[in-house]
């Protein structure tokens, strides 16, 4: 036992957390004593030590689990254990429950963990739809309902979309650019283990006195600063989720910049690498802002600071500016990696080079830059200085241009290809249409007079889901099906995959398309009860949404069954050119025996004798170079 407690692992984590808890209680007791709240009843008053434990326990857990051991050794100047790669690679399913330095293990940890939270968040959506099926109160009171959509959104954003992209990239990106691992493997492990903490906190909020946090995923002050304790679970959880994505972004950037295979110039990188490069830039620059915004809320709430207390000179709109300065870029953090995935899938599945590779890369950077100049389009009706609106309207609308470049280039990539219509491709094509739809509703929203009317209505909810579900989630499904053979070494069931696509596609539209209408007609968002005129549509929406939920179960079944019993996958089932497909499925524990040499673009399909990467000890430094995007041959009959 004592050994187990000294060993890094769950036992030690549990032990440390007990200590941490005692510590938190002690501290809050001490402080309250010093400030003279000295009557016994108040020593153990929930608020204070719950708040403290929210910060202390996670670190106790991480330290116990051994996420920091190595750095402690190093910091103490003790001889760091020689690199025996003990913590590298999975030996059994158990390995997935410990910090691991292998980017492939971490990638799978991320992905599986995120999908778990898709189901949790989705389940909450189901409950919401059940309540909204009819006007009036059915199952939940308004407090619970506000909690449901707040947690629904927070979980799906901070614990599904953002991390699942990081997960997929974690697995494939180092392989794609010919790196043996991420640049900072231990930081990589840490950034994963920060996520379960955020997740547990958000779910735990339901047990807090006064219920879960219920001021929306936007947590606008002063509602959030005057809410019950549950709000703090969001505030703190976001700190951990944010720290996690910043750490991953740093890792991606350093990896992409310093660890590309010989010959892989920036313009020979697969577009997925480009996408994650741009995304990571967004994360590194923007995420500190949401951390800060929630920190302000914490200080106002817990210590009675006055950031948002207008009576004492605080400024309420400041919260919204700081929040959206992160959260608008965040919507591109939730989309750009998807763009990367779609580029991979489309080019491979239509057996053609990406059309206009360089413009594809540049439009990503353009979106990154423009993305920082549009945040106030969420604030057209917030009562901010009115002169800010028009410039923001213009920049917002202009973002459609680089995005359009990508959409049209993808269409041109399809053109005259030899298109394999299998599941990943179906989802990629579904994405093209659905995201265009959501994007266009976005452009409609950017027109101030329209936004003044539809802001905070179900039209927004429709937009949200067309871009996040029809956009991000479709690309995620495409990516998961596309790399499933590589990550698991098994093939998924094509029939079920197609079934999943069609069910999702149909019921997705049935669920969210009508929301445009009822929104414009005047149904506000974030309400548990609504005027009878909307009853019929809401019933239809709810029924469709349940079917949508079921369709997700088809996916879950397919993944689990195929992972356990699917047919073995060959190394390169799609015969793709990018490097991750040139190694065995699943990829070997150290990725490559010898880093390959890159001699051409990643998408040279149909180019006679084109090669992307050369393996083997004697790689010619430069073979016939055919960088991507060179407008080599005059396009056929375009």
């Amino acid at each position, binding site marked *: 036992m004592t050994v187990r407690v000294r060993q890094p692992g769950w036992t030690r984590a549990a032990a440390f957390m007990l200590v941490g808890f005692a510590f938190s209680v002690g501290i809050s007791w001490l402080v309250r004593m010093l400030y003279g709240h000295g009557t016994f009843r108040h020593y153990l008053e929930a608020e204070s030590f719950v708040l403290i434990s929210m910060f202390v326990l996670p670190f106790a857990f991480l330290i116990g689990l051994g996420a920091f051991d190595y750095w402690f050794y190093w910091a103490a100047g003790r001889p760091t254990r020689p690199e025996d790669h003990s913590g590298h690679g999975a030996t059994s399913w158990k390995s997935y429950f410990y910090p691991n330095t292998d980017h492939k293990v971490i990638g799978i940890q991320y992905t599986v963990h995120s999908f778990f939270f898709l189901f949790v968040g989705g389940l909450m959506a189901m409950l919401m739809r059940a309540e909204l099926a009819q006007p009036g109160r059915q199952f939940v009171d308004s407090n619970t309902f506000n909690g449901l959509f707040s947690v629904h959104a927070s979980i799906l954003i901070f614990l599904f979309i953002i991390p699942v992209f990081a997960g997929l990239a974690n697995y494939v990106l180092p392989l794609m650019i010919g790196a043996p691992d991420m640049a900072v493997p231990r930081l990589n492990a840490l950034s994963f283990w920060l996520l379960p903490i955020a997740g547990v906190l958000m779910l735990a909020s339901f047990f807090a006195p006064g219920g879960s946090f219920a001021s929306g995923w936007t947590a606008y002050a002063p509602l959030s600063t005057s809410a019950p304790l549950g709000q703090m679970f969001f505030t703190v959880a976001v700190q951990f989720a944010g720290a996690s994505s910043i750490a991953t972004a740093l890792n991606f950037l350093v990896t992409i910049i310093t*660890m590309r295979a010989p010959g892989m110039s920036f313009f020979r990188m697969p577009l997925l690498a480009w996408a994650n490069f741009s995304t990571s830039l967004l994360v590194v620059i923007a995420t500190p802002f949401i951390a800060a915004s929630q920190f302000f809320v914490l200080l106002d709430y817990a210590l009675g600071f006055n950031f948002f207390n207008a009576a004492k000179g605080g400024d309420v709109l400041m919260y919204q500016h700081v929040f959206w300065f992160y959260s608008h870029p965040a919507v591109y953090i939730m989309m750009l990696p998807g763009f990367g995935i779609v580029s991979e899938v489309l080019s491979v599945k239509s057996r053609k080079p990406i059309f206009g590779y360089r413009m594809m890369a540049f439009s990503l950077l353009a979106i990154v830059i423009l993305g920082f100049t549009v945040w106030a389009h969420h604030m057209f009706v917030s009562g901010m200085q009115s002169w800010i609106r028009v410039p923001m309207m213009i920049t917002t609308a202009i973002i459609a241009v680089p995005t359009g470049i990508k959409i049209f280039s993808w269409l041109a990539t399809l053109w005259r290809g030899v298109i394999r219509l299998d599941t990943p491709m179906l989802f990629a094509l579904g994405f093209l249409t659905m995201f265009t739809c959501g994007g266009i509703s976005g452009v409609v929203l950017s027109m101030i007079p329209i936004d003044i009317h539809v802001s905070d209505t179900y039209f927004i909810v429709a937009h949200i889901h067309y871009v996040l579900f029809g956009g991000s989630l479709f690309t995620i499904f495409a990516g998961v099906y596309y790399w499933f053979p590589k990550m698991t070494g098994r093939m998924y069931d094509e029939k079920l995959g197609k079934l999943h696509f069609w069910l999702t596609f149909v019921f997705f539209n049935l669920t969210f398309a009508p929301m445009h209408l009822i929104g414009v007609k005047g149904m506000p968002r974030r309400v548990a009860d609504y005027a009878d005129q909307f009853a019929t549509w809401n019933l239809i929406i709810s029924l469709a949404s349940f079917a949508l939920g079921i369709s997700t179960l088809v996916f879950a079944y397919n993944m689990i069954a195929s992972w356990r019993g699917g047919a073995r996958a060959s190394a390169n089932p799609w015969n793709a050119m990018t490097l991750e497909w040139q190694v065995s499925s699943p990829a070997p524990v150290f990725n490559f025996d010898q880093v390959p040499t890159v001699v051409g673009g990643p998408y040279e399909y149909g180019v006679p004798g084109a090669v992307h990467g050369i393996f083997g000890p004697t790689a010619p430094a430069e073979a016939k170079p055919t960088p991507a995007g060179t407008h080599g041959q005059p396009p056929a009959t375009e």
Partner: protein
Amino acid sequence: MEAASIPAAHGHDDHHHGPPPANRSSRVEPALLGMMLFIISEVMVFGAFFTAYFFIRVVATGHTWFPVNGHDLPVAVAGVNTAILVSSSLTLHWAQTSIKNGNRFGLQAGMTATFLLGLTFLFIQVNEYVHIGFAAQDNAQATVFFSLTGLHGAHVTIGLLLLGMVTVRAYKGHFSPEHHQGLEVPGIYWHFVDVMWIVVYTSVYIL
């Protein structure tokens, strides 16, 4: 912490089965690059707090700045403190150059001096809090004052932890003219904390 972990991640030569050595596709040192990027997001953290400062000082209705109902900021004391922090950057630089020339005494003396100067800064800062005569709860201006200086104080503390480790290792005989990266990386961070303070001082105390 990022910085601390990086040396472990690469540069160890595997004379046993392990991953192939990664190709270095860029001249920049990964550790430095990582630290630079990390500092970018640190700058953004301060950026957010300065946004709060800007809104409350300039935008908010009834905006004013110190002296707020009678209370002013101890500009002079803080000025002295600024001098202390700046000098700590110099001593750090001394330590770094000395180890490059293999002068271990210079390293140890420099690190110790830097550490102590940093500690003094922190002490004076806390002392200032105690005697300043108003609390963050009083009004938004006070809130901003305590948050900005407090945020910076937190960074000084982290910086001191890093420097502390380096100092310990300096006395344990680590580092050499060839391998002193474990000193460079925390060094950058400390210089950043230093520059940040100058910005905070000018905007909060002087302007």
